[in-house]
């Protein structure tokens, strides 16, 4: 795997595997001739240390000691110490950082990384053969995975990934400044909202809402449905209805009242409501978005140790401890019941444990579309025109 894969290699290997650029052929070619991975895969001894990269403020913290109680519990139980680093702030930037070493077949010295499936990167990592398969024999708690999250279109059997947390994407509005904004057409066409709304700059964040409003399936994108969606957004950009495309920097202007409404993440709004109780958040009637942050094992990571850790966090009472601090959507069945015992207000918040009706109305975005260069280019040209 130290050699860089050239197009010629790819064609040769694809031909050798008897498949001319079919998907399995490409996968085989991208997987290369690595033998290093199998050694860490089949070995059932725990490593001394687990290297875990995650997003900031994304795990339980003891306010007094500043330690992470669940990580200490894991160490106590298994003897594996955890080196926990909060160095992921943005999917694209983090991918930009790790793609160099991974493409050269070098380890990135991490056993678990967490990436979001509303970006193209989790599927890209799998396609490139840069992540290891989970050792499911070490994850009996896999059965606790929320059914709605079991079959994402980019890893249909969860061979490579396990959710860490999820979140919903919907419409937030300030009830002091506008009537309730409950649909995408209202958001994009209501003249009273002109220049006072923002959309999210991630194509996988914004597009599920647009597709659902158009009556198209966000999880199965076609050229025709894509064109329809782009047209809708472009019209709103050209008319000046859309003020900006943002990351989570919409939160300041929304809380201050510069924005009347915007496409927003449920988790942010839970926090903003503490300062401004006029902020409301809803999944649009026609359908909203759901994203999931996924634990992945990068090539060269210790598969067994990482899998044992994943099994640990899928214990409902451990998941409940993490959830009580994090307040996003918990992917672990049974965590809600555990949390009812320690913190019922969190357990009964539908933005943290959404109802089944909400989950049914929230869509992921087609991973193939997220990786379609033509779509990405059109989207990028639209949001910075």
């Amino acid at each position: 795997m130290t050699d860089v894969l050239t197009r010629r290699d790819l064609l040769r290997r694809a031909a050798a595997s008897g498949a001319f650029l079919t998907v399995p052929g490409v996968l085989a070619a991208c997987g290369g001739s690595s033998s290093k991975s199998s050694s860490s895969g089949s070995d059932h001894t725990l490593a001394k240390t687990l290297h875990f990269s995650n997003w900031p403020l994304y795990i339980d913290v003891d306010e007094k000691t500043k330690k992470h109680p669940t990580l200490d519990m894991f160490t106590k139980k298994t003897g594996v110490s955890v080196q926990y680093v909060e160095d992921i702030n943005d999917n694209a930037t983090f991918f930009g950082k790790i793609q160099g070493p991974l493409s050269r077949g070098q380890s990135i010295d991490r056993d678990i990384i967490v990436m979001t499936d509303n970006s193209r990167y989790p599927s890209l990592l799998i396609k490139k053969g840069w992540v290891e398969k989970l050792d499911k024999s070490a994850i009996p708690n896999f059965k606790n995975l929320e059914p709605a999250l079991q079959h994402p279109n980019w890893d249909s059997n969860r061979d490579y990934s396990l959710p860490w947390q999820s979140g919903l994407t919907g419409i937030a509005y300030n009830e002091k400044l506008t009537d309730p904004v409950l649909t995408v057409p209202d958001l994009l066409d209501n003249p009273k909202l002109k220049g006072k709304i923002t959309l999210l700059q991630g194509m996988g964040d914004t597009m599920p809402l647009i597709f659902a409003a158009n009556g198209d399936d966000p999880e199965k994108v076609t050229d025709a449905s894509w064109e329809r969606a782009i047209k809708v957004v472009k019209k709103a950009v050209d008319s000046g209805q859309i003020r900006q495309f943002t990351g989570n920097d919409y939160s300041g202007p929304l809380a201050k009242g510069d924005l009347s409404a915007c496409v927003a993440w449920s988790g942010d709004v839970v926090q903003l409501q503490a300062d401004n109780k006029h902020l409301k958040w809803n999944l649009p009637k026609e359908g909203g978005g759901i994203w999931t942050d996924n634990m992945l094992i990068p090539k060269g990571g210790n598969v067994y140790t990482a899998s044992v850790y994943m099994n640990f966090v899928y214990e409902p009472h451990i998941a409940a401890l993490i959830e009580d601090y994090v307040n996003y959507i918990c992917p672990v069945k049974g965590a809600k019941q555990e949390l009812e015992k320690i913190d019922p207000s969190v357990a009964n918040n539908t933005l943290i444990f959404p109802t089944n009706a909400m989950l049914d109305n929230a869509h992921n975005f087609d991973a193939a579309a997220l990786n379609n260069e033509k779509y990405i280019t059109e989207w990028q040209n639209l949001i910075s025109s």
Partner: protein
Amino acid sequence: MGFLHRHQNLTPYLLLAPGLLYLGLFFVVPLGFLAYQSLESGSFDVGYAFTWAWGNYWDAIQNYRGHFIRSLEYAAIATLLALLFSYPLAYWIAFRGGRWKNLLLLFIVAPFFVTYLIRTLAWETILADQGLVVRVLRDVGILGHDGRLLATSTAVVAGITYNFFPFMALPVYVSLEQIDERLIEAAQDLYASRWKAFIRVTLPLSLPGVVAGTLLTFIPAAGDFINAQLLGSPKNHMIGNVIQSKFLELTDYPAAAAMSFVLMAAILLMVAVYARAVGTEKLTG
């Protein structure tokens, strides 16, 4: 001792070595790599291969001409504004600052103890629709009653001007502060008016600082993308935003590299024209 004594002609090279090594390793080598990358073709999925793909440059200019022009335009306006604001300020500190000089300079630099991103986000608050600035501008009728500053080109240029202000103010200050005041006195003794003395003596003597400040401001400003991202609307995005999205979102490294070179060439061209106009000897004083 003995070695250097015998090879005295080596001394300048030895003194230059750390700097040259640093520049070579961290500037020339990456630049060469970038140039190589800009001529690759392919896609991220199948991998990029070197094919002398000059088309990348053509595509960059063809598809994003508007962004290039907008970037140079914003950077030029911001540089001019920074000069207009900082010259009187630096002049006042240099000639009238007295014992407060250092404290006043500290005030100019102080915002820089805060990170770039936070400073720019602070401007989001300053220019907010519900904020004081916009309210006053609405009251005096400069902005319509529903007008705004955020998400306009004005906000982007204002943000850039502010963020690069010290790069202009400090060099200008240094060159003004070094002026021998007796020269100005002499001019006035020879019947020059105060204005004439400024135009004929002070201004020319401060030009090295002005030129240095202009370059230090204009060059990074043209490649900036944070201000456009946070303070601009989608229609105010600069070439830096495009390069960033090509590189990170699209993982189209050849296109991003080619655009970087086009930007570099455009900046070099403008700097060359500018240097010719004011005379290069002003750079060194």
